[in-house]
């Protein structure tokens, strides 16, 4: 498991600020990726990303409920304590390709979901605050269910790359 946590999270408010940022960014990212795949005529992957965005919205709602009546600290975008360039659950934009298959998209989503899980587990393991450890543990268990869902989808995925016609007008064709 990669080390996803830089430093220590020492209060429930700080932890929830991280969780909310991570889940909001992930849901928004999947929505943007879905839009982008639609623009580039990859409807299968666009539909998958759209579904993952909706799942992400549900996570955001769960975290938002936990944040009720807690004043969250305002953390600068570069000061979040994860080691990944973006939030652990957000796919990096540069990992995409317009011809990517559903399987590749699911593998990408699983990779990021596992990173999110690792983040919660590592907070639960390392925080000196008992309440943070407990809350992070609960969220790690929820995240585990999301990982299992993606693994299941991946197992059921039928490879159809061979049937794909590819791009009949690829970008590097001579002018």
């Amino acid at each position, binding site marked *: 498991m990669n080390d996803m946590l830089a430093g220590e999270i020492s209060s429930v408010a700080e932890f929830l600020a991280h969780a909310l940022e991570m889940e909001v960014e992930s849901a*928004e990212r999947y929505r*943007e*990726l879905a*839009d*982008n*795949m*639609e*623009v*580039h005529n*990859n409807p299968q992957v666009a539909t998958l990303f759209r579904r993952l965005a909706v799942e992400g919205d549900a996570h955001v709602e769960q975290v938002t409920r936990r944040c009720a009546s807690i004043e969250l600290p305002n953390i*600068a*975008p*570069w000061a*979040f304590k994860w080691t990944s*360039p*973006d939030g652990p659950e957000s796919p*990096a*934009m*540069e*990992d*995409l*390709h*317009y011809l*990517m298959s559903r399987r590749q998209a699911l593998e990408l989503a699983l990779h990021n979901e596992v990173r999110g899980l690792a983040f919660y587990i590592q907070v639960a393991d390392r925080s000196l605050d008992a309440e943070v450890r407990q809350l992070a543990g609960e969220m790690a268990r929820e995240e585990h269910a999301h990982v299992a869902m993606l693994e299941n989808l991946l197992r059921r995925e039928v490879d159809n790359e061979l049937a794909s016609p590819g791009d009949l007008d690829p*970008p*590097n064709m*001579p*002018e």
Partner: protein
Amino acid sequence: MTTVALKAKDYKSGVKPIWCPGCGHFAVFAAITRALAYLELPKERVAMISGIGCSSRLPAYVDSYGFHGLHGRALPLATGLKVARPELNVLVAGGDGDGFSIGGNHFLHACRRNIDLTYIVMDNRVYGMTKGQASPTTAPDWAKSKMTPHGTGVRRFQPAAIALSAGATFIARGYSGDPKGLTHMLVEAITHPGFSFLHVLSPCITFRPDQRSWKTGVHAFAEGPFEEPVEAAREIHADDGLGLGVLYAEKLPVWPPHIKPSGSLAEVEREFLT
């Protein structure tokens, strides 16, 4: 007047970007919106100006004032706007072709004047919008384009060195694959008084798939930021083109100077029209 604290997504216009999936410009766009939200800049106090090219589509995607101008002419447009409306935060966006080739002359003079602009150049070392030709920052031996089958044979334009020698007072280099660092640099660039030049390595994975290797090649500048041009020049000389960080930051008077006009408009008219 905006009164509610805005989040990064509030600075997105809702127009869907048409950049290729995997393009570095998405991360630059996200970093810009995060920086604007962090600085709590009201939308009506921000103007995004651009020229032509893939990266120059940004004004359509950012929910602020914007102007998608002529090829290479983003900086003169932005200069005029800043002089007329000094209270605006004027951000200028473009690519390596737009900024360093057709707009190269404007780049020199914007640096020299030290106008309070933030110039973000998304450099992918290729003309992407026109299907992959060599740009001023392309290596001389890049031979993947049918237009230059043996490479251009021309030495690369060195943006940081030229910005420094032309008088820019803030010079930094970021990378789209490091959105946290890029956001931080953008905040510093926007708040810097004077001309800030932010050179962003933003891969074009469609026409330059080799740029995926930037992820493992980028590194922090050995030192910096410097206040002395000579020290910054030494760092640039040792640079392999993949160094990241704020290289140079110096506070100098911003143009135009705040001095009273030497005559009234009527007097000027009399001088020229009579």
